[in-house]
């Protein structure tokens, strides 16, 4: 059974005013459990609006959403329970830290779930460990930490609820390259360990190509495609016409192909590209000693 399913989901901002805007238009989507999904799309394509529906923060104007087979908004009292199933990490999550210590902040979600003290403690320590937060850091005030550290604490706060689906809205934005790859690496680690579904909203094709098993492309409030990276990046020209780009390394290989050096089509990560290049170099050197 799919963990998230939407049927003709539509959301309109400012209905009945001159500022009316369709943010999500008739979206049908089915997401299987255990996937690592990248969500890409231009600014204003409706990604953020779409993901806010998955844990019942926004009520669809029309259409329906099923989480784990359960229809959302049928019973309002169930919404909180659903929010524990689908964890949502907003953009710049460090701005929502508020407790005196990082430990307490991470414990905020699990506490709201009504877990026992020991269970909360276990989860906080486990998540902190998984997310590279030291015990010393746990006792500090979140406002003493660096930007990247704060970000990690904030994300851990959602992870500690152990949601079935973890959705992250640009978790790496505003960080330096090192912090960026650290955060993304840790999220991938989490996915590997817990086998939960992870949705990653990102602007960076490189990041999405590197980590995700499937990619959801949004374009002007509609789903353009939901497919494997190979199939998505195979439509490079269409992506470009939407103002999205394929990963830089793919562009390099496409150009090389246009110049008559066909080294392979499905190059989306720098690592794989490097391998291909080295192989072909070796072949060349081997061919003419």
């Amino acid at each position: 059974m799919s963990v998230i399913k939407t049927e003709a989901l539509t959301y309109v901002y400012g209905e009945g005013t001159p500022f009316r805007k369709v943010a999500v238009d008739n979206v049908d989507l089915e997401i299987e459990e255990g996937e690592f999904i990248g969500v890409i799309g231009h600014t204003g394509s409706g990604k953020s609006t779409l993901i806010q529906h998955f844990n019942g923060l926004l009520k669809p104007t029309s259409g329906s959403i099923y989480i784990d087979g359960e229809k959302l908004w049928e019973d309002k009292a169930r919404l909180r329970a659903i929010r524990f199933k689908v964890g949502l990490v907003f953009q710049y999550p460090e701005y929502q830290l508020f407790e005196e210590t990082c430990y307490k902040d991470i414990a905020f979600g699990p506490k709201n779930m009504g877990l026992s003290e020991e269970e909360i403690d276990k989860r906080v320590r486990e998540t902190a460990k998984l997310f590279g937060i030291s015990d010393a850091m746990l006792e500090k005030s979140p406002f003493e930490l660096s930007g990247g550290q704060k970000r990690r604490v904030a994300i851990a706060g959602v992870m500690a609820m152990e949601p079935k689906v973890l959705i992250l809205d640009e978790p790496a934005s505003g960080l330096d390259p090192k912090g960026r790859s650290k955060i993304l690496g840790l999220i991938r680690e989490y996915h590997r360990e817990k086998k939960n579904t992870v949705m990653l909203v990102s602007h960076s094709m490189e990041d999405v190509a590197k980590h995700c098993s499937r990619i959801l492309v949004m374009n002007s409030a509609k789903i353009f495609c939901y497919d494997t990276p190979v199939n998505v990046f195979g439509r490079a020209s269409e992506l470009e016409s939407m103002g999205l780009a394929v990963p830089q390394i793919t562009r390099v290989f496409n150009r090389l192909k246009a110049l008559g050096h066909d080294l392979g089509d499905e190059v989306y990560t720098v690592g794989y590209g490097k391998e291909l290049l080295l192989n072909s170099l070796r072949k060349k050197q081997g061919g003419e000693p």
Partner: protein
Amino acid sequence: MLKDITIGQFFPGKSPIHRMDSRVKLLLTVAFIVMLFLAKNMYSLGIGVIFTLVTYLISDIPFKMILKSLKPIMPILIFTSILNLLFIRTGDVYWEWKIIKITSDGVDTAVFMTVRIICLIVGSSLLTYTTSPIDLTDGLEKLLSPLKKIRVPVHELAMMMTIALRFIPTLIEETDKIMAAQKARGADMETGSIIKRAKALVPILIPLFVSSFRRAEELALAMECRCYHGGEGRTRLKQLKMHLVDLIAALYVAAFIAGVVLVNIYVKK
């Protein structure tokens, strides 16, 4: 949700009232209030009502905005009418039950007061509907500038007001975001006792304060980087200028005030 709150919502437009100088508009709004309080009987107040309606027509502001501006003062309206009905005991008695006595004078005064308050609110909200907050504070600064002589920091006050107005939507948006984020972590703000709900505000207020202070610091720095040093010797991009429309507006208001005064004198009950 929070976005529905309108604080002096501005409706861009091209009506004569939109084109007026904000200083003149401010002064005429004061004149309008004076007009309403000059009215002594139903007939002269009727002129005030006509003035309000005609001005609304000229301004091109949708009529449903009248209702919207009245909504928050409904309790006051109901409260004053009830007080007037119950405590004015002169005139013909319409209805009596134990100590409660409804009289003709009571009804008259209740209607009179209610109509006056409605006109007051509806008419003066026209000022904020047709003037952008920036124009408004500019006008206010200019009008109050004589106070500089007695060392009132007029420019600084106006700048503070401008900044405050500018950041209201930003803060509302920010609050919405933080609320959504805490809700996503299972914060429960809708149920429970008052104390529980007040406690549930902590996770929203702390991040909001932190980010407001950060924003204030960044803004101060940005202003200093652009050499802001107060009002001394500062010139404006948009100079306030009076036009023909302002003169006509002044005459229009004056005519209505004269009308009110005349009706007060000549039309008696």
